[in-house]
């Protein structure tokens, strides 16, 4: 069974123009999904609905077969999903280790090493890490939460090509080896090719490529 299901989801900010217009799809564990689309087409909106930051106007979103409204949005955010943002979103007064420990269900250090941070780096001030390193910390935090679904909104948007490739491969590893369900929003066709399934969001509808 799919870990997440989207059923006929409609969403609009102003009730005039539908950003999302009846979207349905299913997402599985152990797979990486990429969502492509023009700026302003609603990618971030879709991701925030998946992550329980807001509710769709029509339709429903299921996690493990259960409506996330029933699970409770805050509870859903806390237990089932983890976000990774373009701007890394680390807390500046905490070290990488402590940032990962924020969601700690698992011990931070092995996870940080797994995404490629040395022990010294994981005790530094987060602002003294490179962009790539900061995004690794964010990924480590997502992993540490033990959530099954990782939602990444343009996780490589601020990174150079090589680093972006590395980050994507780490996320791919998360999907394939750690059996997470990873959803990545990106503008890069190159990176999207790394995904198992690629969607394109256009005029409020989702097309599988």
């Amino acid at each position: 069974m799919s870990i997440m299901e989207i059923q006929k989801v409609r969403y609009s900010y102003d009730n005039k123009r539908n950003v999302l217009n009846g979207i349905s799809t299913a997402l599985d564990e152990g797979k990486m999904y990429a969502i492509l689309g023009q700026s302003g087409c609603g990618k971030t909106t879709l991701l925030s609905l998946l992550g329980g930051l807001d509710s769709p106007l029509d339709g429903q979103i299921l996690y493990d077969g259960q409506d996330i409204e029933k699970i409770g949005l805050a509870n859903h955010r806390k237990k089932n999903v983890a976000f990774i943002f373009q701007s890394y979103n680390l807390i500046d007064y905490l070290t990488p280790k402590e940032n990962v420990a924020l969601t700690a269900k698992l011990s931070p250090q092995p996870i940080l090493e797994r995404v490629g941070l040395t022990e010294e780096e994981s005790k530094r001030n987060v602002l003294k890490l490179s962009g790539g390193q900061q995004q690794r910390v964010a990924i480590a935090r997502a992993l540490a939460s033990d959530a099954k679904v990782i939602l990444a909104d343009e996780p490589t948007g601020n990174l150079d090509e090589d680093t972006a490739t590395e980050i994507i491969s780490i996320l791919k590893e998360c999907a394939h080896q750690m059996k997470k369900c990873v959803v990545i929003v990106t503008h890069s066709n190159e990176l999207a090719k790394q995904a198992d399934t690629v969607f394109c969001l256009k005029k409020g509808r989702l097309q599988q490529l």
Partner: protein
Amino acid sequence: MSTWKRAFLYVIRKKVKTVLLFCVLLAMSTFILTGLSIYKATDDSALSLRRSVGGSIRLELDESNGANWQYQQAAGGMMVEYVGTPITDKDIQKIMSIDGVKAYNGIGDGSVYAKDFDFISGFSFGEGSDYSRLPSVTNSEYFNFFTRKAFQLIEGRHIKEDDDHAVLISSAVAEKNNLKLGDTITVQCCYDSGDYPDVKLTVVGIYEYKEDTDSFQTTSTDKRNRLIIDHKAMQEIMQRDEIQYDNGIDFYVDDPREIDRIAKEIKNLDLDWNCFSLTVDNSAYEAVAASLTSMQSLIVWLIVGCIVVSVCILILILSMWIKQRRYETGILLSIGITKSKIVFQYIVEVLLIAVVAFGLSYFTSSLISQGVSDLIFNQVAESQPIPEIELPDDGSEYLDITGQYIPYDTSNMEMVESVEVKVIPNHLLYIYVFGVFLVVLSVSAASITVIQMKPKKILSQMD
């Protein structure tokens, strides 16, 4: 990671903010603590001032009820005789047993010629006018002339309840007749209805009285001629079997603030209220208490002002800082930490700093409170008129031997010029309890931006 640990790390790592907030909280608690200790000090000194000026309630024979008085034709003119219920020692005991009554002074009345010494002579109406009226007292320390500081005991001691034929004389009479403590003087009642013996009195004390500026004085109205004696001496002089409190009894209270309550309780006692009347005298306290009262209300306003200003500053700073933390708040919300926990973290952060700042304010406030108190006191004292007590304008002050209408001699009165301020640990406790309340209030008010934050805006606002 627990909320406590996050708060602790924030406080430790954001040093500039921590130091700034520490200073604000330290200043705030120092001012409030200083205010509290000055308030307490003025409260204490108000109490001791109230105790020292005292207040009295006079129980006397009711002159307005004609049924109690009988007029008779006598040799020198009309004689007035009291025929109502006399005030007895039993009545006195009943009143003394009321809570807050500390002492009493019964006053008898008589008039005597000086047999072996001279009064200070005043205007004479003719032969035989060189007499003086004299009061007998239970306890001269509580005699109105002394409590109102018109008389000052400069030598010897006061007359006590068990004295027998003791007398206090003025320094003027002592000087004129070359009298010292231990000397005896002889007096005789000057009434012409009956035979009165010579009575010997021993000088036990000498009082001073500033000469009246009023030039028109007869011998008997000149207060320097008052001989203050005990009741036993009066019984012999007037040839009476019982002590008569012709001029009533003054009851002294511990704390003049209680005086109305006590007067009410006396009124409720089973006494013959057809014959007695009760007068409350609280004027001295009211006159001197003014500077302390205005000091206290000034301080209350200062404390309230401090609290309002510091809460405003606190809310202002904190809401600015919390607004700057939207980004962090968004992150915490996105990983499923609830708003209430986030606000709780902010509260804990401020409390961690506050606990230290409040503790230190004990020392800073100990350093400044005395100085601040003196400063405020000077301000208040400058704007305060010298206390004055109004006199009845019916001229009765010239006649009254009981001292009822003696003006309070304010120059001899102890005015409160400063109070000794001490910061006590109890106040620190108030600061902690109240301070924690204020901090929680301020942080909650400042966190409105967080509480209003909608999760759906997190992603779009942060990118």
